[in-house]
């Protein structure tokens, strides 16, 4: 009994440590004090102010565009790569598998620095022009998330009956149709989680963004600011804009709602399957 209570306390303690900061942040998004910790009384002011803050809105737009585009590109490349490797000879597949592992465990700073050097080098000696732009930033983010797409698609391929693709061909599907109608639906959960992972990675990336960004996107002639680079830039001069608290609260709520929806969907699905199984047993 004591053991059980102790276990309960332990779990709640950990959950509190995890969620307390977010709860505090959410609470302080309803007061407009500039410095964190001051309570100026309850107000919704920060929320309309957030949407009027040009700087933050531009950074948010940039961040979302980059996250979406880079996630799409890495999902496309990672998925086709995983499929290609899966149907290749064993030694090739093993090599690709190991090569995609390295960027995952590698320090991000190493990747960021090497990309920067690559772009500088190519700009100076090959293209004879300054390369840093939206495109270098995009390449940086794709390189960052591509291996994660690969490792989320790979297990789905391994779980799949390898004859499915052949079965589709056998029934008259061209390789492309077989890919679209049979292979893709099978690995879709892996592809989706790879896509979501890419978005998350891109959204809160700072190091690679800071190193590889150039001018463009919503910043026009100026350097592209993402949310992370913007915060970093502002806290050097002044406190974090209080509107940020409202923004992070919104982001957290969006994510929380998404997670709840996914869980509900899964719950419904497993129940659905169970009822089918029972129906079968009843026969």
């Amino acid at each position, binding site marked *: 009994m004591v053991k059980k209570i102790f276990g309960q306390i332990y779990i709640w303690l950990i959950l509190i440590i995890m969620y307390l900061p977010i709860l505090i942040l959410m609470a302080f998004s309803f007061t407009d004090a500039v410095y964190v910790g001051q309570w100026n009384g309850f107000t919704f002011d920060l929320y309309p102010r957030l949407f009027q803050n040009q700087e933050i809105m531009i950074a948010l737009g940039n961040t979302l565009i980059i996250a979406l585009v880079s996630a799409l590109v890495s999902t496309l490349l990672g998925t086709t790569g995983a499929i290609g490797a899966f149907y290749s000879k064993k030694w090739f597949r093993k090599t690709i598998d190991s090569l995609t592992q390295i960027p995952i465990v590698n320090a991000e700073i190493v990747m960021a620095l090497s990309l920067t050097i690559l772009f500088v080098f190519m700009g100076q000696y090959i293209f004879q022009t300054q390369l840093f732009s939206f495109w270098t930033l995009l390449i940086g983010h794709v390189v960052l998330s591509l291996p994660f797409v690969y490792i989320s698609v790979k297990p789905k391929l391994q779980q799949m*009956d390898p004859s499915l693709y052949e079965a589709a061909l056998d*029934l008259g599907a061209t390789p492309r149709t077989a890919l679209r109608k049979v292979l893709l639906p099978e690995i879709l959960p892996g592809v989706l989680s790879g896509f979501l992972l890419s978005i998350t990675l891109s959204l809160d990336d700072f190091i690679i963004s800071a190193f590889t960004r150039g001018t463009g996107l919503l910043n026009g002639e100026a350097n592209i600011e993402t949310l992370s680079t913007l915060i970093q830039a502002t806290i050097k001069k002044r406190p974090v804009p209080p509107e940020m608290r409202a923004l992070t609260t919104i982001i957290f709520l969006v994510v929380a709602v998404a997670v709840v929806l996914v869980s509900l969907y899964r719950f419904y699905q497993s129940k659905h399957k169970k009822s089918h199984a029972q129906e079968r047993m009843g026969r």
Partner: protein
Amino acid sequence: MEDTNKIISISNVSKVYDGVTVVDDFNLDITKGEFVTFLGPSGCGKTTTLRMIAGFETPSEGKILLNGKDITKLPPYKRPVNTVFQRYALFPHLDVYDNVAFGLKLKKVPVTITKKNGKKVVKMKHLSSKTIDEKVARALKIVDLEELEDRDISTLSGGQQQRVAIARAIVNEPEILLLDEPLGALDLKMRKEMQLELKEMHNKLGITFIYVTHDQEEALTMSDTIVVMKAGQIQQVGTPKDIYNEPKNAYVANFIGESNIYNATMMGKKVVRFLNSNFACVDDFPINEKVDVVIRPEDVDLKRIARDKKIDDALKEKYKDKLIGVVDSKIFKGIHYEYVVLKGKNEIIVQDTKEFNVGDVVIINIAPDDIHIMAKELSTNTYPDAYIDKNNKLVISDCVFDCDITQLLAGSKLDEEGYLIGPDGKKYDLNDADVFAQINLGDIEILDHNPDEDENVGVIISIVYKGDHYQYLIRTKEEEDFVCDSDYAFNENDIVSINVKKENIKLTLKGNIQKYEIE
């Protein structure tokens, strides 16, 4: 004249993977409507051959013709051939209906359309959903799954999934249905049922079935034609009856069912010698040829002459022109008994409905047309009754050869006294140890006999010229035969010495080496 009934013709097809030949010079014609089974153990190339017909593999060499058209390089989706896969390969994200309709939905058929200006144009169009509905319903009816259209694949039992897989293939009305061990994952009872159902389906649909299995019983039950394969090569093609009754070689005989197989020698016209006796037979082979003899257990007839008795001299004398043996074991198998009868050291497996008891002395009768004689591909001389003498020499009947007995125990060596010392220091005395000896044909050297020397001697009984060398059959006084390949010419009835280098004699110990251990 081209045979118009021939649906598929496989000629000289080989498949090599990374230097390993999986299918070797495969030649086969299949008649329209036939039920053909590729039978063989795993790794014999039967599935690879099927995959080449389906189009999943391209032959390294050779051609595959379908209705006279070369389809060797045609991709699978362009072949009028459908496959039922070993683990069904049903699409898990689709329900039963969509699985079965998969092929139909992709199919396009030419439709003639009259345009406004009166011109007729042929267009390729998808099937209407009504046609698809009808076809799917019909296919599901054939496999007895009418009511399961909307079910998810994961909710089906193994047998039901199997049926969906068959429906999904036959709904496309293929010219050939390929089945890759389709019943392998089912339990025995289900398998038996499906065997009959498949056979019935074959009769109803009238299309050609090519079936792959390693189960000889399945092959015998269902097929019109069986193709027995081993190591990428066809061993025999024939009806189940042919294959069972007239196996072409010992491999086929052994694979297709339980049987007695003996080394034998032709002694005269339609006389064969095995089990130390001469038998009349119906197959005609050259005299002195080494052959394999197959006798099916149900073809051996037993007659009791004494109970619980050793074969004594009186019995031996009384039945001296008969083959007599002792019943050594008895198993009741439901419809018949299975006995092992010992004749000397040789075992004979017998199936009989009559009851005998262990220890009964019986006359063993084998009718001439139940003795199936098969040509032997000779590459080695094998001597199952050899032994080691006190000088560590190999004795084969009246011949004595130097041999290397350390090969009987890995890592062993001989000490000065001639005992075998194991890697763990244990000592073995191999005097009188029974061994199985093998000598390759090319490793026997024959020389003119020198009467002054103590040699292994034999007489040349027969000579066959094999193109670039001679093959001699040499028989010793004790009727032991040695077959040898030699470049040198000898004459029949020459007396020769038989020599084998000790490293060329392969020995296998019969029984455990532990029993030869000494202190």
